[in-house]
């Protein structure tokens, strides 16, 4: 039988030349008349080693990386397809400490299987969760998910089972399941990876969600910045239909579940669930006031279960292995695993799926290996653009929803962005306000106007214009945004701003920079993107 060589097709692997590597491998196979097959898998999430090429051997998969197209001929000369020695050889993939020390539940198949092979999916435990769900009453499925302790992985951490129960209990001829794949937070890419590397797990999770809440139709809303994920999901859905895993008779059960993908259009706010619903309905992505909750009045006014990609992709393993198996991982009220994404100025950036409770320091140093630049770490932003900036002294905070809230931080989607000592936190605070101004949907005044005023006030502070007075004003403005905004964008933007002021006051106390010669330039730039 033909030996398999794996070259990832994950967008991040492509970003460092995986397509060129795959072409070079195919050319060598043809030229040398070898019995090898190239499989385009997802990524294992060890991005500093991408493109990570693997080969199947009797002892397991052996990894080589980072491989360049130029290095491919040398790999063949060395006999890499038999797992032989080469300077790029990393040994058995599963034995690489970064991977070995993880607890991969949601990402169990990602990087291992061919994302668009349904038989691969099934032979690696796929659709076992659905099979079990099909033998259960909707209430029992909801109970299983509730018991597992799964909380919304999109950032808010709301218990998934409770949300589902509301949808289940709400009467309605038509209900929907909507997957929020508008992963707009900087420093996060777990949703993208799973959609590109194991799309069927999301389809299975959504199908189970549909049966649990009584919905026959689902949508996945994917941001347009993820064209690869969009294409993979579309193909996977078509394959699921062809093979009877979607449609009028899912897996021979006689039950219907339809699924479609929709593309966003570059609006960060559409990651907010009600904005996303507006966008799906064909309108401006302006948020809706709550109540009514989407679980009661959601898409097209019908009861809708809205969940993040990772939450839904975790449902199959919960149904397959049982609630207790999942709940046994984690700490406190944060049960199961967190898909940590190490980003920014970090040596070993990548995906680390680990039980809740690992400290920030362990994630950044034990897995991440410290900063990429080799300079001292100065700040860490966890939870995306709305998350607080933490100083070195808070690195022992465990990755746990409550522990982060206690430190006035946000665990969010588990994205960790590392900054070295060249960072200027006054600039970062200004950017937080600027980003909010660019992306505000405009519905509520504290967010729409507050963010613009926030940029102006921070500019004055930087320019040494009545610093004590303007710092006081910034504090009051932030309080107003937190209390008065309709959604998390305006309500949480003050967190990165205030944390920057609190932990890095020296950055707001520097001599004023030299005056800008073209005074209008900066204002125009800000205006342009509104």
């Amino acid at each position, binding site marked *: 039988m033909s030996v398999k060589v794996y070259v990832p097709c994950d967008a991040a692997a492509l970003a460092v030349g995986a397509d060129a590597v795959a072409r070079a491998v195919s050319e060598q196979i043809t030229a040398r008349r070898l019995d090898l097959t190239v499989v385009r898998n997802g990524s294992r999430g060890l991005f500093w080693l991408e493109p990570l090429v693997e080969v199947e051997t009797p002892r397991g998969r052996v990894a080589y990386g980072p491989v360049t197209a130029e290095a491919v001929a040398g790999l063949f000369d060395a006999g890499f397809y038999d797992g032989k020695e080469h300077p790029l050889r990393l040994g058995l993939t599963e034995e690489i400490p970064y991977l070995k020390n993880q607890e991969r539940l949601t990402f169990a198949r990602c990087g291992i299987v061919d994302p668009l092979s349904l038989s691969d999916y099934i032979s690696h435990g796929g659709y076992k969760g659905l099979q079990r769900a099909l033998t259960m009453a909707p209430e029992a499925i909801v109970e299983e998910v509730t018991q597992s302790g799964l909380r919304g992985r999109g950032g808010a951490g709301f218990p998934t089972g409770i949300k589902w129960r509301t949808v289940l209990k709400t009467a309605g001829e038509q209900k929907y399941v909507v997957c929020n794949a508008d992963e707009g937070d900087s420093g996060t890419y777990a949703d993208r990876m799973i959609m590109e590397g194991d799309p069927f797990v999301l389809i299975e999770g959504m199908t189970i969600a549909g049966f649990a809440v009584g919905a026959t139709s689902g949508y996945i809303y994917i941001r347009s910045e993820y*064209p690869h994920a969009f294409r993979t999901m579309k193909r996977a859905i078509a394959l699921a239909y062809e093979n009877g895993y979607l449609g009028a008779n899912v897996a021979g059960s006689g039950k219907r579940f339809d699924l479609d993908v929709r*593309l966003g259009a*570059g609006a960060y706010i559409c990651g907010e669930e009600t904005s996303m619903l507006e966008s799906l309905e064909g309108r401006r992505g302006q948020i809706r006031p709550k109540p009514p909750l989407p679980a009661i009045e959601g898409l097209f006014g019908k009861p809708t279960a809205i969940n993040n990609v990772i939450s839904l992709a975790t449902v199959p393993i919960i149904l397959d292995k049982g609630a207790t198996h999942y709940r046994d991982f984690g700490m406190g009220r944060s049960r199961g695993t967190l898909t940590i*994404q190490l980003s*920014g100025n970090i040596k070993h950036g990548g995906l680390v799926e680990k039980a809740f409770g690992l400290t920030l320091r362990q994630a950044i140093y034990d897995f991440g290996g410290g900063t990429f630049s080799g300079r001292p770490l100065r700040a860490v932003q966890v939870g995306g653009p709305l998350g607080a900036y933490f100083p070195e002294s808070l690195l022992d905070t465990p990755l746990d929803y409550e522990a982060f809230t206690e430190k006035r931080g946000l665990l969010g989607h588990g994205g960790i*962005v590392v900054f070295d000592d060249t960072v200027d936190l006054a600039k970062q605070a200004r950017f937080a306000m600027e980003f909010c101004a660019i992306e505000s*949907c405009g519905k509520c005044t504290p967010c729409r106007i507050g963010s613009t005023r926030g940029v102006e006030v921070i500019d004055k502070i930087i320019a040494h214009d009545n610093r004590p007075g303007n710092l006081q004003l910034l504090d009051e403005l932030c309080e107003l945004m937190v209390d008065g905004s309709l959604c998390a964008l305006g309500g949480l933007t003050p967190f990165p701003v205030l944390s920057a002021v609190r932990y890095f006051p020296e950055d707001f106390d520097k001599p004023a920079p030299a005056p800008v010669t073209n005074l209008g330039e900066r204002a125009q730039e800000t205006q342009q*993107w509104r």
Partner: protein
Amino acid sequence: MSQTHTWDADRALSRIRELENVPGALLPILHALQEEFGYIDPEAIPLVAEVLNISKAEVHGVLSFYHDFKQSPPGRHVLRICRAEACQSMGCESLVSHVEKHLGVKMGETTADRSFTLEPVYCLGLCALSPSAMLDGKPYGRVSPQVADFLVDSIRRHS
């Protein structure tokens, strides 16, 4: 880059009709038009409004809300550079200044010869390989100023 056609009302109308019965059809229609023509011509607004039986103001409102939808033709190649936090931590702002100088345009502008449009993007999900960029839909990680120059210059040489 993907092949686009010059504006043609009949062609536009047939794309609109293909999607008119999709639930929440407006975004899929606008995406289809932009895919077809590279931008959404002002003449498309009344066509879409009529088919979907909504006001022109509603179509315009949606068109102008989303950063992706272009209301005038972009350059032949679109270079998007990520300016979000993870890329900031790896110096994307100096990359942006460098590319602006190299292309002779500011963010959001198109070069005089219409070869390049330079755009900001807030996260491409390549945050472990910052700074990142996307050129005509292809992702690039660890984009140094030299890599950016190479990408731009190799396109210029071939055109």
